[in-house]
């Protein structure tokens, strides 16, 4: 896949404070990319650098094949800031038309696109009201519409679901999925790991302004845990399982489970990829092991987050 964003050693220093230390990442065309990190990790500063709102102190970055800040590239970007505000004396429709004109749009095409988006974010009825009368959730939704006016190739969303109720979050999630289906890439910066897990193809973890880990969600096997429920194990079976991956002790290992007539064995195995599973099952059956159940037990993003960031990041 083509890289839409590519950064190498991006750095931003404000006085003596280093906000972003060494950011190197790639966002590919058509993917929903999650950008994760604790507060103060430099996520928003990184995002603003990519949008040309902040000049980097060092390093390089290309966005849509052009150096950051390039106007032609910015014409193909969408952006919803974290603490976004709009001129609150404008109506929702006027605000969208104003931003559309900044994208070089105009006339009927702009009017139609603005109303189409207002309908998509369920604000058509409130389109004529001044933004100052909008609730926080409505502001967030009109902001999202603003970010999509130009049918962007890449949308930067900085905490798009903050302040939204569950229905609003579902709406944002649906829109992100629609964008992906249309081939639009999304750069999602969010603290809500559930949202990220539900929508992102790939995530990068940043800590103290550095990229520290990358994880592919949904299909990547680097974190694939398999739970096996089997009959009594024969000699050498555990050793055979260890050839497939790391075997972890799980509760119930080698004990009689309630409701079972024979001794069951439960083993959790971390395998390198999904392709090994058929071979694993075949090997067990060939050894005469009764295989009752084989299920994937994915590690949650929250667990990953804590592992990557370290326990010291937990407040208290």
């Amino acid at each position, binding site marked *: 896949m083509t890289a839409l964003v590519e950064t190498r050693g991006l750095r931003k220093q404000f006085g003596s404070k280093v906000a972003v230390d060494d950011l190197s990442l790639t966002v590919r065309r058509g993917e929903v990319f999650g950008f994760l990190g604790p507060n103060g990790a430099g996520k928003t500063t990184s995002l*603003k650098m990519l949008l*040309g*709102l902040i000049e980097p102190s060092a390093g390089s970055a290309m966005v849509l094949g052009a150096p950051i800040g390039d*106007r032609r590239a910015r014409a193909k970007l969408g952006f*919803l*800031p974290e603490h976004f505000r709009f001129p609150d004396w*404008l109506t929702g429709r006027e605000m969208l038309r104003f*931003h559309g*004109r*900044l994208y070089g749009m105009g006339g009927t095409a702009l009017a139609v696109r603005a109303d189409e988006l207002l309908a998509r974010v369920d604000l058509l009825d409130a389109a004529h009201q001044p933004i100052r009368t909008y609730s926080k959730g409505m502001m967030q939704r009109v902001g999202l519409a603003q970010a999509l006016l130009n049918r962007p190739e890449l949308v930067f969303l900085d905490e798009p679901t903050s302040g939204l109720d569950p229905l609003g979050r579902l709406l944002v999630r649906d829109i992100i999925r629609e964008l992906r289906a249309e081939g639009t890439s999304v750069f999602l910066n969010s603290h809500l790991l559930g949202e990220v897990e539900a929508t992102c193809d790939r995530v990068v973890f940043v800590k103290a302004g550095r990229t520290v880990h990358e994880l592919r969600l949904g299909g990547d096997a680097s974190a694939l845990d398999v739970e096996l429920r089997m009959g009594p194990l024969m000699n050498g079976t555990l050793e055979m399982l260890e050839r497939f991956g790391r075997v972890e002790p799980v509760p119930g290992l080698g004990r009689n489970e309630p409701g079972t007539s024979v001794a069951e064995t439960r083993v959790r195995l971390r395998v390198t990829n999904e392709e090994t599973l058929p071979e694993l099952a075949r090997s067990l059956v060939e050894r005469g092991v009764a295989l009752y159940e084989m299920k994937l037990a994915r590690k949650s993003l929250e667990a990953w987050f804590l592992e990557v960031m370290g326990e010291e990041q937990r407040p208290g």
Partner: protein
Amino acid sequence: MRDLLTIAHLTLHETVRRRVLLAALIGGAAFLVLFAVGMHFVNLDAVKSDASAMERRIMFSILTLAGLFAASRLVMMTAVLLPVDTLSGEIASGVIQTVASKPIRRRDIVLGKWLGHWLVMAGYLVLLTGGVLLIIRVIAHQSPPRLERGLPLMLLEGTVLLTLSIAGGTRLSTITNGMFAFGLYGIAFIGNWVEQIGTFTDNEAARYVGTVASLIMPSEAMWQLAAAHMQPTLMRELGATPFSPLSVPSAAMVWWSLGYVVVALAIGLRIFQKRPL
């Protein structure tokens, strides 16, 4: 250019929608009504006392300049207050982020706001000075001389302050920016008085202080020059009115003011171009 005009249009729209223009118009209308009533009664007295044509001319020249002086103060305050938070406020609130991330040059944001506010200020100046001149014309049948020189100088006075307010907003917070602009205006105002007194008492040092103050902030010098133009030559030379400057700023000060506007705007553009948003 299209982006610049879009921003200027939004700025004009904002003054209307946020009722800034309405407030300015009400304030201006109240001033004009008061001025008209005052003129009416002054004129009645002049008729009753059977004042000579020369006396009437001097009296109404003074009152005309007083009216234009008041108009210039109102315009000056508008020039500072109207745009004082246009950039600093939008930077602080984050409004600017969604605008600046669009395919727009940062300079077009600043210039668009400058143009929008300048049009409002210029319109306000035309309204107020036009009102004063109309009242004087109707009541006293007089018109000040050399308006074609005086009024553009009044516009330049406001333009200097407006540009300073916008340029300051690229770097300073709203309150600091307002304090800064009014502080400079204060320097110019006091500096002018020091210069006049220095001229009257033949104190070279005082005159020098006044000149330096005018170089730091040339807005007041523009009013002095405008006032000198818009009164009959004889009265100006005799110092017959409180608006007859003893030390008339030179024409070079006009070029200084124009350069001041250009440089202040260029500095503002440069700061805004580099500023993290």
